[in-house]
């Protein structure tokens, strides 16, 4: 009975924590700021009025985690005068990109700074074609990969919003070897951190934000000026997150304790016999 009530009780506790006007001083942004320093250093190396290719392929299940950071990063790039060329290789990423375009339009982002390259089908092969199309020689442009009206000047950087099958790892594997010196910056959900950390360590990724704490540390480091309106007004609810983690640890502990109890009972019965 108690177990059946656990789920709705957890929902009520989390919802109640969201309503509290305080967060007990819990902060996400006091993390190790090395990821933020790495990202800011990469962004500072951008030339004037750069063109940045944004590979927008988050997934619906993890975009909630990335959303505040992605929006600040896009606003940061716009504030630096960057022209953002969005491309999606998955249908989920395309759906989320369309929603973000709508939001940017509502927030009156400069339309000349935003280029929609649309949906590119073909998975890994499409990334290969895209990388060839981005080369310096226009004759090598793969016909049909990019719309003709979306001629891109030399790209300064690629930002990959990950979460889906074709994320930062695919860009490192398929695009980086075919584009000489194109720096790749990734924003990815926590679940991809173990997969992407080695690429950051080996220098294949120029910068990586892959935890809510890294994202929060980056968000507070950015001065957006008039583009501050693009930032989500409410920060992630830290108290609710902490309570959820406590609940998760309790469930895990209960499972471990149950296994231990079974093992102890089995040992005792062996001793008794």
């Amino acid at each position, binding site marked *: 009975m108690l177990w059946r009530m656990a789920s709705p009780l957890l929902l009520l506790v989390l919802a109640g924590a*969201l309503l509290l006007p305080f967060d007990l001083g819990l902060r996400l942004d006091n993390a190790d700021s090395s990821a933020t320093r790495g990202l800011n250093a990469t962004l500072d190396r951008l030339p004037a009025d750069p063109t940045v290719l944004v590979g927008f392929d988050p997934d619906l299940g*993890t975009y909630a985690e990335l*959303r505040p950071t992605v929006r600040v990063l896009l606003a940061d790039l716009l504030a630096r005068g960057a022209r953002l060329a969005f491309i999606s290789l998955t249908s989920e990423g395309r759906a989320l990109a369309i929603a973000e375009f709508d939001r940017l339009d509502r927030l009156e982002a400069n339309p000349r700074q935003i280029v929609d390259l649309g*949906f590119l089908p073909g998975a890994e092969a499409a990334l290969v074609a895209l990388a060839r199309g981005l080369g310096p020689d226009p004759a090598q442009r793969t016909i049909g990969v990019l719309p003709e009206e979306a001629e891109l000047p030399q790209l300064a950087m690629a930002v990959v919003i990950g979460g889906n099958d074709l994320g930062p790892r695919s860009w490192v594997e398929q695009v980086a070897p075919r584009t000489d010196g194109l720096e790749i910056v990734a924003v990815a959900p926590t679940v991809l951190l*173990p997969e992407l950390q080695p690429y950051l360590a080996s220098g294949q990724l120029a910068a990586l934000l892959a935890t809510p704490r890294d994202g929060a540390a980056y968000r507070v480091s950015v001065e957006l000026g008039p583009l501050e309106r693009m930032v989500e007004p*409410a920060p992630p609810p830290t108290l609710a997150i902490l309570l*959820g*983690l406590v609940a998760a640890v309790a469930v895990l502990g209960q499972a471990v304790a149950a296994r231990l109890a079974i093992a102890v009972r089995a040992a005792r019965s062996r001793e008794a016999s």
Partner: protein
Amino acid sequence: MNGLFGAEPADVAATWVAAIVTLVVLGALVGERRVFGWSQHLLAGLATGFLALLAITEVIVPRLLEQLATDPAGRADLWLGVALVGVTAAAPWVPRAVAAVPLSIAIGALAAFALGGAVVGTLLPQLAASVARPEPTVVATLAGAAAAAISGLVLIGFVHGAPRGRILATAASSGRWLMLAGLGGWLGYLLFSRLLLLVDRLAFLVGDWLGLVP
């Protein structure tokens, strides 16, 4: 909270629809699974419909049909594309050997590019990076050596069926335990990501929908 909806009547309606569907999904946690099952069908249907829409409006029409209409004689490769689309669409009615052609091309290309990319982009650079070498600090050097040792142990853990001595068997066992620890850590990250999604959905209900959070 998610900022995807504005204040127009259509946006308000969208917020209500999103809130109701969110409640339906959360309802599965309290035992209401029938409506939750319908919502899964709805999601599958919408995803399929959206993918079909994308394929037609962003791929087949602008990158195939429009270009063929502009220059039908100059783009022989696109006619091949039309033929492949036609065969895919008619798969239930054409011989299996013919229907398998577009699928074979897709799977073959996917495997070839994925494998090649994995070798060039991941395997070789990561092998090079996992070689322990002197680093600027002692801690970094030790971390590099530990990474190399763990990589080696986990690789040995994948050795199955070969005759082993005691040392190799111990190393393989250690490698498997290290891999299990890694998987455990990864599951922890996965749980954290899903927890954030749950909290975000509740924040959407409490904030965007009910307006209880400013």
